[in-house]
Every structure is written in structure tokens, then in C-alpha cells.
């Protein structure tokens, strides 16, 4: 095992059951992600990308194998412990933004800070700083419905970052955005990665994946390719995707 690994997944298997039917979504996934790496996960629809993210982040249960985050086997933790671990160590960004509609942008961003035990005044200051950093200093007290899609996703990014997590999970973060807004969000993630943040990002978009250090390709629940990328990468990624 790599001493620098923040995430280790060994033989992770996930089966979806529906009545008598069952579908194996992950076939014994092995994956090691070093601290500070930006990993892009690609693959066709239904290949198991989101399942991979959900399982290795601890959002979903697994049927076999184990996942270590910072050496901690997260599926052996109780729901309560795993929830606390997520609040302190992880940030999440979703395709559908998933902001709490009845909270303002600031309240959404301070939520993980408060969950992690921060004082309310500290959480409020930190949330405002983070929103200013993502370019939303002028939208602090707006509710999600009053923001554009790009702005909502930037709030979601701010929410994921505010607690200074060790690892950020992003599931199609640009899927609902136009190219300009998507570029802004990806640039932001690039900046964060440059500061040493570990990012695991699921995407369909080669342009987005091109910003990663490493590209993992998943097909039918199996990791079919795992390679490191070096710039300029977009053409290479496109070729990889078309071959896959």
C-alpha cells in the first residue's frame, strides 16, 4: 500500500437487487489514490462511475471488499461515525447542485462547517470568504432559486470546500452547465487541486477530464484503464475515450 495514499479501495463489489433480479454494478474494484491527486473517472452511461463514487466515498454500502480513507475502513464504521467522518473529511459536489432551497447561499455553505463543529460566527465568516473566493460575494443572501445554474454550482463548490476537506467528490459537476460556466467551475477545481486538494471527479466530458492528473475508465463495473495524464491532454483524453 502506498504510504501517501488517501484512498485505498480493495476488491469493492456492489450488487443492486430488485426482487429476484440482481445486477453487479462493481466487480471487485481496486484503486489507490495518493494524497493531492486529481482523478477523473470516465465511462459510458451505466458503466458504474457514480456507483464507484458513492461506494468509495462511503455514501453507499458495499457487498464485498473494503475502502480505506486515510487508513480508516469507512464501511466498518457505524452510520453515525461515518456521517461524522464525512462531515469532517469530505466535500461533495453533485450534478444537480443539491442545494437546500430554503437556505441562503451563505447558510448552505456554512452547513458543513457547523456539522463539523465550528462556532456559528466562525462558520459565517468562513462561508462568506469561501463564497467570495468562488466569485459570489454579491450573492451571499440569495436563495438557490434566485441564482443561475452556474452560480448554484459555485455555491455547491464553496459548500464542498468550506470545511477544508481532505478529499472532494464531484459527480458530473458540469453536467447541468453551459460550456462557459463549466469552464469556470473546472478552473476553480483546478485551482483547488493546485493547492493540494484531492479531487475525485466523475464526468462524461473529456474537456473536464483533461484537467485531471489521472484518468480512470470504467466499463461494466470494471476498471478497464488507469493512466496518468500530462498536459496538453485534451486530445489524448478524447482519443482514449474514443478507443474505449
Amino acid at each position: 500500500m502506498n504510504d501517501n495514499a488517501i484512498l485505498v479501495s480493495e476488491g469493492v463489489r456492489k450488487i443492486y437487487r430488485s426482487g429476484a433480479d440482481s445486477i453487479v454494478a462493481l466487480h471487485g474494484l481496486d484503486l489507490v489514490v495518493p494524497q493531492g491527486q486529481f482523478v477523473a473517472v470516465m465511462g459510458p452511461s451505466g458503466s458504474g462511475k457514480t456507483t464507484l463514487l458513492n461506494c468509495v466515498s462511503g455514501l453507499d454500502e458495499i457487498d464485498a471488499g473494503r475502502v480505506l480513507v486515510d487508513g480508516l475502513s469507512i464501511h466498518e464504521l457505524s452510520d453515525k461515525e461515518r456521517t461524522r467522518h464525512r462531515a469532517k473529511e469530505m466535500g461533495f459536489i453533485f450534478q444537480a447542485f443539491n442545494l437546500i432551497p430554503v437556505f441562503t447561499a451563505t447558510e448552505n455553505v456554512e452547513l458543513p462547517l457547523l456539522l463539523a463543529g465550528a462556532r456559528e460566527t466562525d462558520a459565517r465568516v468562513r462561508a462568506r470568504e469561501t463564497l467570495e473566493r468562488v466569485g459570489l460575494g454579491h450573492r451571499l443572501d440569495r436563495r438557490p432559486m434566485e441564482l443561475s445554474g452556474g452560480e448554484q454550482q459555485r455555491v455547491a463548490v464553496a459548500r464542498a470546500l468550506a470545511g477544508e476537506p481532505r478529499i472532494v467528490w464531484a459527480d458530473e459537476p458540469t453536467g447541468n452547465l453551459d460550456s462557459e460556466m463549466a469552464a469556470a467551475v473546472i478552473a476553480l477545481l483546478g485551482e483547488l487541486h493546485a493547492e493540494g486538494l484531492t479531487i475525485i471527479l466523475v464526468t462524461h466530458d473529456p474537456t473536464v477530464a483533461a484537467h485531471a492528473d489521472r484518468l480512470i475508465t470504467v466499463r461494466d463495473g470494471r476498471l478497464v484503464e488507469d493512466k496518468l495524464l500530462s498536459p496538453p491532454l485534451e486530445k489524448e483524453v478524447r482519443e482514449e475515450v474514443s478507443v474505449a
Partner: protein
Amino acid sequence: MSAMLLIALLVASPFLFILARRPILRRLAVRNAARRPREAMLVILGSLLGAAIITGSAVVGDTMDASIRQAARQHLGPIDELVVARSAGEWRSIQGRLRALPTSSVDGVVPLASFATATTAGAGGALRTVPNAQVVGLDFDAAHVFGSAGAATGVFGPTPAPGHAAITTDLARALELGPGGEIDVYAYGRPSTLTVDRVLPRVGLAGFSLTGQQEARNVLVSPSVFSAMAHRRPAGVAPPSWYVAVSNRGGIESGASLSKEVTRSIEQATAGIDPQVTDVKQQFLDVADETGKTFTQMFTAMGSFGVFAGLLLLINLFVMLASERKSELGMARAVGMRRSQLVGAFATEGFIYALLATLLGTAVGVGLGRVLVAWSQSAFSSEHNRFDLYFTVKPDSLAQSFVVGFVVAVATIVVMSIRVSRLNIIRAIRDIAEPPPRRRKRWLYAGFAAVALGALWTVSATASKEPFGLLLGPTLVFVGLAPVLTRIAPARTAASVLAAATVTWGALVFALFPDSAEGASIMMYVAQGIVMTAGGVAFATLQLDRLSSALHRFGGRVLALRLGLAYPLARRGRTGLTVSMYALVVFILTFITSISFMIDNQVSAATADVSGGAQVFVRSSAANPVSISALTQTPGVDGVAPLSQAQASFALANSPEEHFWPMTAYDSSLLQLGPPALEDRGFYRTDLDAWTSVLSDPNLIIADPMFLQQGGPPNFSVKVGDRMTIINPLTGASRDVAVAAVATGDGLIANGMLYGRPGAHQLFGDRLVPSRSYVSLVPGMNAETFAANLQSEFITNGTEAFSIAALTDEAFSMTHQIFQLFQGYLAMGLLVGIAGIAVVMIRAVRERRRQIGTLRALGFPAHWVGRSFAIEAAYIALQGTLIGALLALLTLYTIVARSDAMGDVTFAVPYVQLAVLLGGTVVASLAATIAPAMSATRIKPAVALRMTS
């Protein structure tokens, strides 16, 4: 009934057409309804209570109506008219004249006579006594052919021979006597021992009674035995009542329709004698109809709070359904569905819910009615007063309740469907928030129109002191001002001011116009409750931000609290609807609970008011009364005030209609003993001055506060200065009198109108027998012990003696039970609120599934999710109960403390009862939230996020 069903069919026809002929819309409606069966069941359960409350109210009314009609069968049977003779001689003349009545309208004429008596049985063993029985003289052979149905007379067998009698089941039960037993009848100073031949049912002629009591304790003897007994009458006691009963052609009830015609014929046949002719059956039936309607209205009026709460729940559910299906509805429009089709599909789904809910609700309402009737029976059964209820459900009432519940539900659904269909397709598909509504000129015009209409109504109502106009006129002005003021001032401030003004006006209207509150109908208070609740909830909803920031300061760090409050504070419209449900129901419950408490508090004061200087009330048989001197000499007696009661007729000034009402005459001994307190002594300096004036002036009378009230809501209230004519119905002698004062309600003593003895004697002559008395006792004498002893001592006089305190207590206890009945009934409305919050929370869990998933992903512990739902439910329930309770207390304060509508009742707050009521409501609401909150805690983040993406 067919008209009702036709209305239901007409209302249902568009939906039936859609179900039959529009497959796409049918599919949408039916599949959406069946999509989540458990939730559909909850919607139906939440909605059925409205129909249940309407049906329950109708069933109580039907039962009251039928029970009084049953009393008509029991006490009159085939008797439709009674001709009352002044003497035995006149009685015989009338019998001769009435043989010539036209047979096309009349199928029976029978003479009968009666006098009150005391009876005993079991001499030598355990003596059993019935002081308030009646001897009826009747020719059984004539009775058998009286009317078209012999069994309806209740009389069978030959006329009892001399020394023999038939008795009714009520008397037989009370004396534990059967055929062959001996009964002692005390009449006109002498006992007669009779052998019981047979026991007759309390039906028709056998059960003949005009006392208004449920039971008929009759001793039926032959006319010759009756005449022999009557012949012994000494001076100073009431003579027998001589009647000729007439039966009209037709059934027991249907025959009454000929009463006018037959009465005319009787009057023609008895011209020159001119006896009193009473259409007694029709009067019974009128009272039955009136009482039935009154009870239906009373229960419906109070239940209307629950019905409104049910409608708010329905609206809330449809708002939530529309919100949940917003993108589906947008897509339907996008692929070419017309707005009218969208309305059709949505409304047809609602029609399915409404139909099932109303059908079930009507059935549940019958059960509810059964419970209410059982409960009412105990309220109407005290030691000295009983009225048997016969549970009855009329198909017409059932149909009417179903149609009302169904039409109201469908109308609500159609309005909501039209509102839902007005969506922007793109915003709906993308689930983007709707922009603030545009300000339309038509609302401004509507506002001006409402202001003008409200102002006119107010001016007109101020002049006539009409309570509805006084309440609703200014309210309409405030509502109309809303679209005007919100254009020239900050909208929230303007709307808040108008909402506060509405509440303030609702609370103060009766304090500012106290006269208008007197005699106001119960619907007035319903309107007042609804107006104030609407204003209160609107004000609270508009000012929620301030509450929000206060709570955040208090508990911002507690994330479950923050989340629990965030949803209701962000969705004010929905929150307002749910809060209103609670506020409406709690308003009326607090109102009734507090009134009941305040009335209970009056027992001591009421006893003192009713007693005056007496502690014991005594009544005896008018045919054999206790002599006043004997009563005065009884050990323990300090003073006696004799009273004489007669059945009089009263006609209000400018009204030809006569109303039978008891009249009690008093003399100066009552003034020496200390007369009862007066509720309103008019212009007199003291109560004693008023009593003295009425005694000395036969043109004055003290009115019974219950005069012309049938036990329901007051629709007539007698006042000082009212003029009326007092009439002896037997002789026609009359005198115009003015109301000098209004007495305090004396409950079971039932003196009726109080009149000076000299004036009464001029009108009623020898029928004015001092058969009742107020008795004051020497210090240290226990009233109840004295009463029991006195009753034994003067048993042969049919003496009944009561401690006035115990009688007052009994009357209050009956009132208390009736209030408890109302409270139980109104608590049904709370079920609407509690079921409503459960449904709202279940739908909220579904609606917020993705958000819960996100929160869980971010590290929000599962139990915090559950806690936030509990906080949300508690917040809504607490807000609703507090608004309802505070507004009810405010309203009561203004009515009780600032107007005369509640007489001498003193304002008081039943803290313990209200704490139990309000605490119980919040706890029950929290209990109803347990299931949805638990299901929210079980949501797996990955599953929630996966399903929604």
C-alpha cells in the same frame, strides 16, 4: 332526496365524462391516484372528516326531531286537537256538539279528563311513592274506536270497573307494581285504593300527558270513578282538566295537516261555548322540526370550524401535489396538452379522492352521530329531568350531507386545479421558481368595490345593530384596502397592518356594540372566529421573518432547529394553511372550554341568585297541595313563600301568535323571605323595588329569561320594556303587561313568567293553587335532609322538596355535560389538524428526499433529520394552537367582560384545561409526525441522490 342526488350527479358528470370518454386524461387521473396507495389513503382520510362532521350534525338533528315526534306518539297518539272545557258541565255540552263534526276530516272524538295526584304502593311493606302522577278518566270502549289505528291509542281491554284501574308502564315500574296489585291514589284530600287490572304502554291515550316530562305516570279509571273522585274537590285546590280529544283522518303525523280545517269545524260546532281549541299535535311536530333544525344548525355551526380545517387540508394537499408534479405538468403541456385538459386530469384525480372521501365520511358521520346521541342521552338524563333520544338517520339528511360534503370538496378541487394549470411550461419543466405575481388592475378595481360594499354594509348595520354587518362590513373594507395600500406602501407592512386591524376589529366589535351581541346567532360567532383566525394567521405569517431571526439568534447553532424552522418559514403560504387548520379548531375548542369553565364558576353565585332568602323549593300536587300553614309549622322552617303556577298563553305586542308558557304568581311573603335576584332590574334601584312594583301593579311582569327559547341558540331575547298580553287559555281572559324586569334563570325550578298574585287571580281564578313554595330554614338546618324529611311527611300530597343548591348544581351539571359533548364533537376537528400534519409531513419527506440525501452526504446525522421534522411539526402545531387559543380568549374577554351577551358570567381562564388541551394537541401532532420523521431518518443518501438523478 332525488333532487340532492341529481345535484351530485350534475357535479360529477364532467368527471364521469372524462373517465368514460377521455382515455388519456382518465389514465393520468387514475394512475396518479393509484400511484401511491398509502398516500392516497391518507389524503382520503384527511378529507373525509369534513363530510363526517356534516353528517354527524345532521344525524343529531334527525334524532332530536324523531325523538320529539316519538314523544308525540307516546303522549298523544291519534289525538290531533284538544278541546278544553272550563267545567264538567261545559265538557258534556261540548261532547254533544262535537258528534256533528264532518267525518271526512275526523275519525274519532273521545272525552277524557285528568288531575294531578300522588300515588303509593306497598303499604305494610316497603312503601313506594310517586308524587307526580296523574289520574285520567277515560271510556275504554270509546278509546278503542278513536282514530284509524287502535294500537296507537295504547288502550286495550274493557274500561276498569269501579275500584279498579289500569296504569302505565312508567308508573308500574316506579311503584314496582303489576296486575292484581293495589295502588293508593291521593286526590282532593282523600286516598282511594284501586286494584290494578292491567299495565298499558306509554302510547297515545294511555300515555296522555301534557307535562313535557318524558314519562307518563297515569292511573286510568272509568269516567264514573273519575267523576266521583272529582266530586270530592274541596275549595282552594285546582279543578280537573276536562278535554275532548279529536283525531283527524290520516296517520299519526299526517293527520295534523288537517288541523286548521278541523279546528275551524270545532269552533263552528262549539259556537256559544267557545272553548279553547289546541292543535296540540301540530304544535308538537312544529317543536320537533324546530328543535331538529336548531340542533343540526348548532352542531353544524360548531363543526364548521372542522369542515373549514378539512378544506384547508385539501387545498394544502393539492398545493403539495402540484409542487411535486410541477415538471410532469410542464411536460404534459409541452407535448400538447391543453390547459383545460390539464385541469380535467388534475380535477378528475381530485374527484376520485373527493368521491371516496365523501362516501366514507358520510358513513363515518353516521357512526359519529351515534356516539353523539349516546353522549347526548347522558347529558339529557338528570335525576329530575329526562328526555329519551331515539337514534334516527333520515335518508334525506344522509343524501343532503353527502351532497354538501361532495360539492364543497369538488369545488375546492376544481379551483385548485385551475390555479395549478396556470403554469409557465419552461419554468415548470426546469423547476424554476415562479416570479412574484404581477399587479393586476382588476384586483385594484375589486379592492375599490370591496371597500365601497364594506362601507355601505357597515353603515347599514350600525343603524340596525345587525351583528353580521358590523363584523363583516369593516372586514370587507380591510380586505378591499389590501390591493390599494400595497401599491402605495411596503406590501408586507400594509398587509400586516390590515391583518392586525381585522383581528382587532373582530375582537372589539361586540365591546363597541354590546347590544348587537345579545341574541346574536351561533353563526355569528363562527364568522367571528373565522375572520379573526384568518387575520391572526395572516399577521403571524407576514411577520415570520422577525420570529425567524429571533429563533436563529436563540438556536442558530442547533442545525436541526434551523432546518426544522427553515421550511415553514420559507413556505409561508403552505405554513399559513396548516397553521390555520389548527388555529380554527383550537379557537372553537378554547371558546367552548372557557365558556364551560366560566359557567361552572357561576354555581355558587347562581345558587344565591336563584335562592333569594330560601334554601328549599317545595312543590306538591295541585289537586291536593300541602297546606301553607302545615308547611310553616314544620320543624326547621323559618319562613314560607307560597307560589301558584298556571299554564298561560303569551302574545307578544303586534303579534297574533300565542305561546304557552308557565306563569307563577307570588305574593308579599316572597318579598319578606327575600326574592331571587334579577338578571335585569330595568329602571329600578334595587331588585326588591322591582319585585314590589310588579306585585302591586298588574300591568307589570317579571320575564323568564328563557321565554320562547327552545333550548337551542337564542333567537329571541326578552328585554325590559317589551310589551305582551297574558291570557288564560281556558277562559280567554287577558291583560296587556309590560316587562318590568328579567328574572335570573332558575333552571329546574322552572317558574316561568313571574306575576303578582292579585293580577294573576283576576285572570286565572280558582286554578291558581299555591302548590309550590320557597322555604327558608332556621340556621343550622341542612337543606337536603330537611327536603327528604318533608317529602316523607307530606307524601300523600305528592310533595317533592329539593335543596335549591342541589337543583342548581344538577342544572349546571347538565349544562356542563352538554359542553363536554360539544368539546368531544369539536375534538373531531382536531383530528383534521393532526391528520393534516401527518399527511403534510409524509409528503414533505417525499418532496425533500433529495435534500435529505444531500444533507446526509454532507454529514447531517440521521437522527437530526428526524428531529428537524419533529421541530417543524411542533412549530406549526404550536403556532396554530397559540393563535387559536389567544384569539378565542380575546374574543371571549370582549364578549364576557365588555358586553351583556353572557349575563353575569365573569371572565376566567381555565389554565389547567387549556394546558391539557393545547399540550395534548401539540403532543398528538408530534406523535403523528413520528412515522414520517422515522422514514426520513432511514433515507440512504446514495439511494436518495441516485433515485432523484
